[in-house]
């Protein structure tokens, strides 16, 4: 029997506000253990939370980006449970009235830019818990409360996802938007985005959902793909054997590629949600909600579709470009200066990205400008310099105030197309390589490339390779 996989995702993203959600402590990753905390975020008796309004703004912007309805009047609720990393023994979250609801995210389905709409049930704000540490020299566990009170948004999708591939696209879409809005650091390895995965399967064509299993401890997008595929196959195997899928929570073990039961439905916790009496109703005025909406930039999916359409770029290039708002903006500015879009992406996604990766820096850390790149591409297009010389130029201009023209001048990189000069070089090279000439006469035409290469070397890289190729071929034929 054929089965359909049904997936819903709950993404938790830490927001990058300067301070925590309910106190003035710094919100930063990697500080010394228990250095960013105070009586409020450590839940000391008598302390009270005061809402950081930036968190509401950030979440509303995410809501707008995911086409949600914004509940500009909403409340905060306590989710009660005991755990040593939760100092108040309740987490302040939102229960029945989330800040944002009923939205969607369009994910790209193919290289033509066709999309599928994935429903977003809700987005709510809540506080993060601390982290337990286990040190060998202590018998018990230790707790680091730096993360207590770090603001989170929880983004819950509808069960509209039908494969692990769609799940990955959805997660990448969410991540790209968080980055575009600059509201989260989006570092999976630092835990700033985490996700819970809900999976069920049903016979193809059936329109009622199967029993849902929730998976925890899914710590990367690729782990999400693996976890979904594993769990779907596990459920299908259960059904094929005539069994029933149990509603339970399972823990994904990415190292071994398996999952195991964490708790069954019977053990589900009763969180006893109720409105937090220490906090006031959140009321955001309509004008501010609109102001936040107006601040949303063009989002990755729309941008990608526009790149395919307007610039005729391949899907691969477009996709890489839109992942990063800085690069996308740089690309558009350079193209607007007249450079061919494909040349721009070749440089931007090729050599420039390589330099950024090597130096571990961002585009904004360099002295590269759209003007400089456009000028360099123009020099290549006009055959003033070779493509290879372009790489030398790039190395010289990327961290300096020099213009491409200055570098070409200084380094003598101007490409020589003067045929009388090039003919002379070709004659010398042909004379010095009788073996290659013999081979050519035996029909091995690929020696042309070798001879052109020798000519380029003899011209110290300045010869126009296309012109040289013509000359060499003509001379060989004439021999």
């Amino acid at each position, binding site marked *: 029997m054929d089965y359909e996989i049904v997936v819903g995702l709950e993404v938790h993203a830490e927001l990058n506000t300067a301070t925590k959600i309910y106190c003035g402590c710094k919100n930063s990753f990697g500080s010394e253990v228990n250095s960013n905390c105070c009586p409020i975020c450590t839940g*000391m008796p*008598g302390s009270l939370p005061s809402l950081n309004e930036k968190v509401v703004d950030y979440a509303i912007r995410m809501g707008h980006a995911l086409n949600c309805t914004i509940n500009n009047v909403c409340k905060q609720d306590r989710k009660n449970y005991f755990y040593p990393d939760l100092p108040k023994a309740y987490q302040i979250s939102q229960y029945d009235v989330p800040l944002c609801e009923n939205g969607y995210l369009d994910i790209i389905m193919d290289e033509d830019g066709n999309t599928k709409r994935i429903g977003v049930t809700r987005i709510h704000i809540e506080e993060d818990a601390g982290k337990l540490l286990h040190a060998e020299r202590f018998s018990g566990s230790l707790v680091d409360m730096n993360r207590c009170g770090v603001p989170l948004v929880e983004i819950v999708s509808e069960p509209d996802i039908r494969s692990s591939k769609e799940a990955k696209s959805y997660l990448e879409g969410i991540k790209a938007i968080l980055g575009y809005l600059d509201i989260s650091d989006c570092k999976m390895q630092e835990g700033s985005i985490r996700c819970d995965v809900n999976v069920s399967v049903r016979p193809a064509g059936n329109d009622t959902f199967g029993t849902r299993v929730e998976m925890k401890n899914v710590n990367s997008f690729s782990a999400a793909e693996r976890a979904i595929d594993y769990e779907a196959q596990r459920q299908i195997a259960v059904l094929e054997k005539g069994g029933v899928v149990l509603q339970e929570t399972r823990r994904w073990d990415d190292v071994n590629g398996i999952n195991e039961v964490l708790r069954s439905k019977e053990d589900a916790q009763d969180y006893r949600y*109720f409105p937090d*009496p*220490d906090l006031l109703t959140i009321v955001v005025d309509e004008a501010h909600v609109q102001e936040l909406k107006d601040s949303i930039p063009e989002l990755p999916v729309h941008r990608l579709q526009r790149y395919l359409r307007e610039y005729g770029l391949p899907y691969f290039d477009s996709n890489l470009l839109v992942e990063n708002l800085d690069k996308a903006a740089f690309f558009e500015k350079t193209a607007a200066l007249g450079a061919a879009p494909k040349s721009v992406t070749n440089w931007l996604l090729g050599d420039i990205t390589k330099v950024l990766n090597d130096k571990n820096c961002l585009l904004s850390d360099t002295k590269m400008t759209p003007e400089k790149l456009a000028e360099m591409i123009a020099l290549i297009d006009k055959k003033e310099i070779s493509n290879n010389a372009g790489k030398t130029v790039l190395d010289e201009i990327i961290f300096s105030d020099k213009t491409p023209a200055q570098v070409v001048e200084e380094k003598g990189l101007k490409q020589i197309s003067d045929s009388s000069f090039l003919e002379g070089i070709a004659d010398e090279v042909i004379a010095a390589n009788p073996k290659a000439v013999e081979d050519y006469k035996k029909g091995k035409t690929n020696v042309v490339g070798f001879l052109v290469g020798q000519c380029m070397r003899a011209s110290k890289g300045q010869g126009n390779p296309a012109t040289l190729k013509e000359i060499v071929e003509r001379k060989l034929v004439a021999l």
Partner: protein
Amino acid sequence: MELYTLSAAELAKLLREGKCTATDILDSVFARIDAVENKVEAFVTITREEAYAKAKEIDEKFARGEKLHPLAGIPIAIKDNICTNGVLTTCSSKMLYNFVPPYDATVMQKLNDCGAILIGKANMDEFAMGSSTETSYFKKTKNPRGLDRVPGGSSGGSAAAVAAGMAPISLGSDTGGSIRQPASFCGVVGLKPTYGAVSRFGLIAFASSLDQIGPFGRTVGDVAMLFSAICGRDPMDATSSKHEHADVLAAIQGDVKGLRIGIPAEYYGDGIDAEVREKVMAAVKQLEEAGAIVKEISLPSTKYALSAYYILASAEASSNLARFDGVKYGYRAKEYSDLTDMYERTRSEGFGEEVKRRIMLGTFVLSSGYYDAYYNRAKLLQRQIADEFARGFEECDVMITPTSPSTAFQFGANTSDPVKMYAADVCTINVNIAGLPGISIPCGNGADGLPIGLQIIGPKFSEDVLLRTAANYERICGGFNTVADLA
């Protein structure tokens, strides 16, 4: 005249006239404590050394001619659920037997800035749950007006310390009557401010939506002075109000001519001792003679208050007290097998019976499947009670009721029957439910010689009117300022 018998206002005057020093006042107060604390047992902690150090600073400032707040150099007792930086704060619970807060509550910060001198932390019902201070883990505070009687609760230590002359003023907290009822039992003045009038930051929460810190004193003037020092918006407490408070010290000079006093019939019915009704109505009569207009009104939802209160307060308490889990501070069970066992043993051993009863009740009413039947219905009742008060205050400016159905009861009288104990708060609970201010003042004694209190209730932020009404009665009856004779 012994300094410990004087009011804070009188002491402030003597300090400014150079007739005594803050150190002299402490000498007198601590001598009184040494003489009577063993009988009364009002304090969990006494901060003698720190108090003298502070008094020395204040005396130096006076000597330099600095202009200081009226509370400068005035000793004060603070209920042991209000955080005091570096000073043990136990909530009278085994659970917090060793808890020393690393910060001051906002009220403590304000009092420190005024130059008031903390002399000790007052005993209370464990986590403010009780009406007799008998649920304290540490000791049973006696009523200074009758040592075989309870001082009321939960702020029993704060009321008893003031009645016994061990402090001219003190702070308590009131969730369902915990300032007013002990004030009534101990024959002192106690004000429960409007919800949001005083910052709760640093008050170890019992029921966050009902808790409010307020002052005790032996005079209305002292209570007004202390209230004006602690009220006001605090950015650390989201529920504190931006309301601009009236000048209550000026207000208490006014009269009651034309003041409309409402008498809600429901507060004078069965269950209220006849002598209590008589004394309260006699006081109302005196206010009427002074120019007030008295009218009967009705608050029919009063009978629902106890049920709504025990659901709402317990629900919030079950969550507020969850943090006492043995992980970070306070008591932790000595032996346990794993994390769950540690939680269970710590909380079973660390909390007393009444606290556990309310945590269980609160956990139950918030449970899935019961939430609507209990918590949501109690919320609806809360709205109904508040609306009824609001309509009542269209007909009158203040309401006067008994504070408690009876005079102070004997130890053990209600401990076996929690519901009977809860009924002791029947006159005060509504005021918390509706978020209103209420004050209790003495209005004579019962046949047993113990004080009877009357409660004045007003609309939100009408503390000035309550205090003015109270001050008028104080003037009519010739003053309340009597220190209990404990010889």
